[in-house]
């Protein structure tokens, strides 16, 4: 029997209250893990970017387009080994318009060359290249929509109005996590030939393979310099920098997530502190008896802090126990499959788990400091007088 052991047993005295408090700590730990994993996954997306790819877009904005001939000119530049171009299509499934997935017009052969991590069978590849209305579907989207090779699908265009019919030529998977597995890729020509003359032959962005990843900065500058005197200037950056610039658009969301984390932790602290304070009030007479038989104020403080520590440990362990499968097998798997470009790897990181567990313990202890001080400063005679 030890002081800590007694403190641990004390929390079992009001099982409902203890269970609810442990649940609060566990849920807070779980959500902390979730939120930190969102931030980690988002901010680390650039780390998963290919080092041998650079992206070129309009200097002013993503939404402004470039002439298709820029892609052809970039392909001729030293150090560039392959080029593909693409347009954001913004298609939706008319049966479920709230279900978001990426729809991008591209040149099939050059896409598969620039993105070797996109894998499909040779037969499906050739079928796609050979069919102007052919579409290559990410495996997670195909699974979700129950689409299969040979199906005919219709998408409603939001940027390019009308109903657009496609034949599913193939289903791709990826060998890395930096490519989204829920995208519909289709022929740029199919889009281009349907556009009015003034909108033809324009692309949203150009992605180039380079022979030397270490030269990405130099080649990017050279690309931009090439078009500097033209009507439409470009900005070129590594894929990692592109991801980071994209992330910058969401900085407010990241800040909001940080704020939510802090608020949640503060609420958890108040709830644990209140539970401990109630326990102290109920056990005033027992603390008086302990003091009477020789225990010191520091022992009483240890009792109180010990109880808080046990709540923190149990809540933290439960939170981690729930967090790992919830994030790694549930939310994480979904995000990786459906939003792979933003969340290329959505897994609980050891440092986040340690931080969450440490926070559960630390917060439980901090929450108990005031009740512990109060319990330790109780006058023995006064405490015993409350016996009955």
């Amino acid at each position: 029997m030890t002081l800590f052991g007694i403190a641990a047993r004390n929390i079992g005295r009001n099982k409902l209250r203890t269970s609810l408090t442990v649940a609060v700590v566990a849920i807070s730990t779980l959500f902390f893990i979730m939120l930190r994993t969102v931030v980690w996954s988002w901010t680390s997306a650039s780390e998963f970017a290919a080092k041998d790819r650079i992206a070129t877009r309009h200097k002013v904005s993503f939404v402004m387009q470039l002439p298709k001939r820029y892609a052809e000119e970039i392909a001729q530049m030293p150090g560039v080994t392959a080029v593909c171009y693409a347009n954001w299509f913004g298609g939706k499934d008319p049966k479920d318009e709230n279900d978001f997935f990426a729809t991008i017009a591209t040149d099939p052969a050059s896409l598969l060359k620039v993105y070797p991590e996109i894998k499909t069978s040779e037969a499906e590849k050739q079928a796609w290249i050979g069919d102007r209305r052919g579409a290559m579907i990410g495996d997670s989207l195909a699974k979700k929509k129950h689409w299969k090779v040979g199906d005919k699908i219709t998408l409603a265009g939001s940027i390019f109005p009308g109903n657009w019919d496609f034949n599913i030529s193939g289903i791709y998977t990826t060998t890395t996590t930096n490519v989204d597995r829920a995208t519909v890729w289709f022929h740029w020509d199919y889009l281009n030939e349907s556009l009015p003359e003034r909108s033809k032959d324009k692309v949203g962005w150009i992605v180039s393979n380079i022979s030397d990843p270490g030269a990405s900065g130099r080649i990017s500058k050279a690309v931009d310099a090439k078009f500097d005197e033209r009507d439409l200037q470009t900005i070129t950056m590594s894929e990692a920098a592109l991801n980071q610039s994209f992330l910058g658009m969401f900085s407010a969301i990241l800040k909001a997530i940080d704020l939510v984390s802090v608020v949640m932790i503060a609420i958890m602290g108040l709830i644990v502190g209140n539970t401990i304070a109630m326990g102290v009030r109920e056990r005033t007479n027992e603390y008086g008896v302990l003091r009477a038989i020789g225990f010191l104020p520091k022992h009483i403080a240890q009792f109180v802090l010990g109880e808080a520590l046990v709540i923190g440990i149990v809540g933290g362990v439960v939170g981690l126990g729930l967090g790992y499968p919830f994030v790694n097998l549930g939310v994480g798997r979904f995000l990786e499959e459906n939003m792979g470009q933003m969340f290329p790897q959505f897994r609980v990181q050891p440092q986040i788990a340690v931080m969450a567990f440490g926070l559960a313990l630390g917060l439980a202890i901090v929450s108990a400091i005031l009740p512990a001080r109060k319990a330790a400063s109780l006058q023995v005679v006064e405490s015993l007088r409350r016996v009955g």
Partner: protein
Amino acid sequence: MSENNGKSDIISLSKVGKSFWRGKERLDVLKDLDLTMKEGSFEALMGPSGSGKSTLLNLIAGLDVPTSGSLKVAGSELSQMSEGDRAGFRAANIGFVFQTYNLMPVLTAIENVELPLLLTSLPAADRRKRAETALKLVGLGDRMGHYPRQLSGGQEQRVTIARAIVTDPKIIVADEPTGDLDRDSANDILNLLGRLNTELGKTIVMVTHDPAAAERATVCHRLDKGALAL
């Protein structure tokens, strides 16, 4: 300690006063009290509510300090002692028996008895052995693993007494030890306290309202308005 009839004084109060403040009003609960108790005696403190008997018991037990005067218990002058030193004094010299038992509900009988020994450097096995001995001494050798809620009031009070004697203190202070018990259980407890006094030589100071309980004591002090009544 002064000698008298072969026994020395274990408790000695000289001009002890104790006052409390209620707002701006000063309450003199004990007034210039002179009192001695012999080692190995069984003494009762009686008196009406508010007479100061519980305050006196708290002073003797080292739970509180007098406002004035000298208070010597088991060779230690308590009036000038720090809170920490008094805690050590209590752990070494005083056993407590309360009216409402005050056992920890999450601990078994033997764990409750073992509790004061956590403050000693005794190994766990020795602590457990001592607690067993104390419980057997109070007749609860067959209830060691029971929780307080599984015991009767009389049995709970026996556990309290076992907890009080497990550290082998010189003095046992009992505050209305039979106040919550029926007559038969009260007699058992008083018999037990009597045995501790006669067989183990413990000095017992007992506050009680019960004349039958007071009759068991060898000396009975009556207090009235903070002073010993003649």
